[in-house]
């Protein structure tokens, strides 16, 4: 990574924005899949069988982690923009690592439920 950007605040920005972009790409596919129900049970069942494939499940785990990451990093952005900072140079840096860890915990819970 470029030395200009190798710090926690920038990594949190990247995590928040890239997870948001990934979710934006995922959502139309999600709605398209849900829309299959309108075409009848057979089309939806075919998709649901496809969704049980291990690779798709792994991708689903990734999406759950990204969603949680987006949520926790988004809460940090709201906190740093709407509440006073702990110090002038501390944009809630202490929230970043726990936020990432919490996203992984959510991913773990998903994994336990699936396996």
């Amino acid at each position, binding site marked *: 990574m470029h030395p*200009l950007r190798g*710090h926690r*605040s*920038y990594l949190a920005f990247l995590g928040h924005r890239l997870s948001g972009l990934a979710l934006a790409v995922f959502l139309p596919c999600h709605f398209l899949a849900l829309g299959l129900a309108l075409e009848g049970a057979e089309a939806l069942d075919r998709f649901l069988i496809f969704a049980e494939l291990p690779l798709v499940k792994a991708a689903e785990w990734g999406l759950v982690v990204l969603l949680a990451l987006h949520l926790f990093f988004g809460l940090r*952005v709201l906190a740093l*923009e*709407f509440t006073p900072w702990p110090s*002038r*140079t501390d*944009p809630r840096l202490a929230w970043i690592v726990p936020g990432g860890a919490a996203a992984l915990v959510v991913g773990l819970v998903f994994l336990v439920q699936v396996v």
Partner: protein
Amino acid sequence: MNSDHVGLLTVRVWRGREEGRFETYRVPARANQTVLDVVTEVQRSQEPALAYRFACRVGVCGSCAMTVNDRPRWTCRTHVARVREEGILTIEPLRNMPRIKDLACDLTPFFEKWQKAGGRHVATASRRDPLQKIDPRSKPRLAASAAIECINCAVCYSACDVVSWNAGYLGPAALNRAWTLVNDARHGARHETLDRAFADGGCASCHSQGNCTRHCPVELSPSESIAGLKRSALFGAPKLREPA
């Protein structure tokens, strides 16, 4: 030059404008040597045509900022020992501004944005009026004082990725300046400044990456100032109270 050096330092210096190349020089490595010392040594002993900018040499004027090993720094207060990588210094002009020649860039767009952000102080009293009383412990004054010591070096502007992606973005320094005025009871256009700081290209364009605060040589926090502007744009300018 004194002969107090301990080996040689390799320095790669940008020569040219937007198009150009790195030239390599070898200068004596000395104890307590700043990056500006190195550039001056190159210019005086090897490359008289090298263009760069400096004035005070003591971290007050903000003229000598350059990109050193990929990060913007005030070169007069940056010790070589702290930033060299494997004995090499790579020095370029600041980014996000047009290059004039070698290490000097054109700060015109940087200062134009100060104006665009409403950074010009509008007086509410003349020299014949009594001094306005300001409570130094009031919240707005503390906020203004925390952000006021900007030396206009453009390091934050050069460090900001949003500036490099969006040429219309006012940048951290101009918005930091706007925040000091929004909190200044003596400024006669607080609401206009807030409106300008929140207009297109203003504080709402900041992605809170924090490069500005991380690189500010005088340890200001433009990020916090911008967060303050965002809050004020939504909930109103800070309330000013007369001192008791």
